[in-house]
């Protein structure tokens, strides 16, 4: 089973589209958990979505609640304002089954901005990935002390733990740019938090920066090629 975790705070106008992109996935053995992180007006998802409510604690805590409450061997994540490409779950699930030693499969992503869509590229967005549950047992969950950058931090820790990630060429994930993105204008600050966590791990002896890692960092974390090409979006 694949467990799909959607953290939500004031889910807003894009939730229906996100859920439709899940329904369009052909993979049937799945559960969908919407973790509402204390929205003043709780969302009312359809019956096939399990809604969990918790006091407002931030996105990482909502992700972790979903991970704890889920039952699947495989985990996938989607934000309420983003979309999955058709076939995303099947492709990444097939990839993990074909590579039993792999902990993560990752597709490419695009950015959607109004009526324009970027080229395909890869960055450490967990929404473009599928994880085996054991990854969280090895690396821990999302860092609930981080106000930003928790997804990059998780991927950084996966790299430090030499978790095998298989890259898939097809696009998995559509990141929607809009006026109220949580991360909007905060990417620089986000990097500071991610890098500080890395330095903290080095200082505490959890990580030896001199130790050779199994995978090259740049290959593991992303491939920005393609992001600069934009075309008009067509949902058809």
């Amino acid at each position, binding site marked *: 089973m694949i467990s799909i975790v959607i953290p939500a705070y004031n889910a807003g106008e894009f939730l229906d589209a996100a859920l439709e992109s899940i329904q369009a996935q052909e993979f049937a053995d799945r559960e969908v958990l919407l973790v509402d992180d204390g929205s003043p007006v709780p969302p009312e998802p359809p019956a096939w979505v399990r809604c969990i409510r918790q006091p407002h604690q931030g996105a990482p805590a909502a992700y972790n609640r979903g991970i704890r409450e889920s039952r699947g061997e495989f985990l996938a994540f989607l934000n309420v304002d983003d979309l999955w490409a058709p076939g995303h779950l099947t492709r990444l699930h097939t990839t993990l089954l074909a590579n039993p030693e792999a902990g993560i499969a990752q597709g490419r992503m695009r950015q959607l901005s109004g009526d324009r869509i970027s080229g395909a590229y890869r960055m450490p967005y967990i929404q473009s990935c599928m994880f085996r549950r054991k990854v969280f047992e090895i690396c821990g969950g999302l860092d609930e002390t981080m106000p930003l950058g928790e997804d990059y931090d998780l991927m950084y820790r996966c790299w430090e733990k030499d978790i095998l990630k298989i890259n898939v060429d097809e696009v998995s994930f559509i990141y929607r740019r809009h006026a109220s993105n949580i991360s909007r204008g*905060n990417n620089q600050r986000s*990097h500071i938090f991610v*890098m500080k966590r*890395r330095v903290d791990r080095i200082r505490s002896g959890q990580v030896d920066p001199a130790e050779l890692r199994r995978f090259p960092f740049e290959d593991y*974390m992303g491939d920005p090629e393609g992001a*600069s090409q934009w075309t008009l979006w067509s949902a058809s």
Partner: protein
Amino acid sequence: MPDDCYRINTPSVVYERFDNELVAIHMGTGVYHSMVGVATDAFVLLSEEATASELADALAIKYAATSGEILPQLAPFLEQLQNEQLIVPVEARGSRNPLRIPGDERGITFVAPNLEAFRDLEGLLLLDPIHEVDEEGWPPSAGVAKA
């Protein structure tokens, strides 16, 4: 020592103050810089333009050292900051109010400020130019073509 005036090299440099550490990153070089103690106060003061003398005067209020004792120990720190492109020299404005460190702490032991650099993190920044650079998307649109 000539009393040159400096300020933080924004917008190339972003910084964040944590409990006992200030982290400054030059987004072009990707180098992570860590400061503690006196260095954090001096660096934050440099968010406005400041000379070494003005920094020393402000630090002497909080720390248990005179401005004259502090001034020579600031020079190597300012040189480090300049070498790492974290601060840039600027032309001093005419009249300015004295610099002030927020808070009412006094008599703290003065330890010469220092800058610690971590260079193995550069890959993240160099790989990921800023997503939210402007309204045109990231990286800047290479042109819109009809689908």
